[in-house]
């Protein structure tokens, strides 16, 4: 009998598998496919103060072993998330959910974080300072250690819920940003968000995505994500949620050995809507194969 339980920022998860924000909506498109309570938790769509329509299309491009997206934080806004999405989530998910907090100014992060943090269903806040697809916000906070610390400190003041900062890989030194967030009061770190990339349409000879760049995700980014989790694990004491191209139970175990306490699955949900339950089902056998009986015990084992 293997043990899949992990404890993330004081919350006990039945298993470390968490669908990543932006690949799972508010759960509604998956709720009819399998029992979402099988998941450790899920992180819902990045939520801003006001509703956002997002970017023009095309928003999606493909590449070898991955994809680019430029959705641009389309979401109904925090008030509708609280009045409509959270009650709907309650109909199919009885565990604490992770609220992904997005914004364009510190005051917006604070307000969205305060409102979502006050909801009983919300187990923790995942503050997205790393969205590469919006201008004048998102990633601008995640690529500067001082700005990242300011967002972290400001949201810290308005919530007692676990505060997890989602980091951008589009930096020279992710460790510096990670340390700044830890010092500013973060309870955990999520990494990595998507890598900035682009494609050019050979027919038009112009960038395929309307604002030139998009966020790269999928198996192509897994080794980069793994390396960053490994580096940050050595530098901070707070728990990490590892993500970036995770597609199998083996990937999950690698992430945990690198230092992740929990693991988010993103793009894999899009090409296989059953990716998460299949990974959870596969974990015991893969653990057994490598002589692992308890997942909590392997965290950071590669160091």
């Amino acid at each position: 009998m293997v043990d899949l339980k992990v404890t993330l920022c004081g919350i006990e998860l039945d298993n470390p598998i968490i669908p990543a924000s932006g690949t799972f909506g508010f759960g509604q498109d998956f709720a009819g496919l399998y029992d979402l309570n099988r998941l450790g938790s899920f992180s819902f769509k990045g939520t801003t103060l006001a509703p956002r329509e997002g970017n023009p299309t095309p928003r999606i491009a493909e590449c070898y072993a991955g994809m680019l997206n430029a959705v641009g934080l389309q979401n109904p806004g925090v008030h509708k998330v609280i009045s409509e999405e959270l009650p709907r989530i309650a109909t199919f998910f009885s565990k604490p959910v992770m609220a992904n907090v997005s914004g364009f100014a510190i005051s917006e992060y604070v307000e969205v974080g305060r409102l979502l943090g006050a909801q009983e269903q919300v187990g923790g806040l995942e503050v997205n300072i790393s969205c590469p697809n919006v201008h004048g916000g998102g990633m601008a906070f995640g690529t500067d250690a001082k700005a990242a610390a300011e967002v972290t400190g400001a949201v810290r003041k308005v919530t007692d819920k676990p505060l997890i900062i989602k980091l951008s890989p589009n930096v020279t030194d992710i460790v510096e940003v990670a340390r700044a967030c830890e010092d500013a009061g973060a309870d955990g770190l999520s990494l990595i968000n998507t890598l900035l990339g682009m494609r050019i349409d050979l027919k038009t000879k112009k960038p395929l995505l309307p604002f030139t760049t998009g966020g790269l995700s999928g198996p192509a980014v897994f080794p980069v994500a793994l390396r960053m989790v490994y580096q940050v694990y050595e530098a901070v004491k707070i728990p990490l949620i590892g993500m970036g191209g995770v597609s199998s139970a083996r990937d999950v175990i690698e992430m945990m050995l690198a230092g992740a306490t929990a693991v988010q699955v993103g793009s894999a949900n899009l090409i296989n809507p059953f990716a998460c339950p299949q990974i959870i089902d596969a974990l015991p056998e893969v653990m057994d194969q490598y002589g692992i009986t308890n997942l909590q015990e392997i965290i950071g084992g590669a160091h």
Partner: protein
Amino acid sequence: MKQTTYVIAEHTKIARQTYFMRLSGDTSAFTQPGQFLNITLPGYYLRRPFSICDWRMGEADIIYKVLGEGTKDMTAFEAGMELDTLTGLGNGFDTSTSGESPLLIGGGVGVPPLLALCKELRAQGRQVKVALGFGSADEVFLADAFQALGAEVAVATMDGTAGIKGLVTDACDFKNCSQFYACGPTAMLKAICAVAPGPGQLSLEERMGCGFGACVGCTVFTTEGPLRVCKEGPVFKREVLGW
């Protein structure tokens, strides 16, 4: 939506760069013409969405055109090959509001989903007119299939090598049209709406990440706010689009 494995039962070229593929497997998730399926192609990360041309118990037909590397690779797929497929995706055409004499308008690879629609409307006893637009005579397909269903068919080609010379809008007869149903490139759909009187339903296409609503990659901005082509669509009423 249902995930299933289809086996290629038949695969033939039917026009220039255009192929017909009959898939055998579970089709129980399809309920309306205009819905689509999403196939994993070996070697490609994202699935490829195709509207269903027609389906029956245990068999679904698609028609695709070679437009990129993925569809080019597909042409080499042989009968017997298995394809991991998401089926029964999206909301299709609503025939309950068609009225007595609907007009079906298709451009290029927008034509296939209209065949199952035509079949359903004919079964309901409707007088169906069909306008089809293609580039050239060697790209024309399905015109005879619509005729065989008892529809009145008009074809337009850009170069005039088959039917009327011109755009599909030149082949449209809106006289007595109780409702129009259209599928094709966005520019074509907008051109139709510019001249079409009365109610209509439009099937849109957009680059998709997942095909079942999760990634919000295929959003269309509508009078009801942003909607997903893959989930709330691909078929929308024209007034919802505001076109």
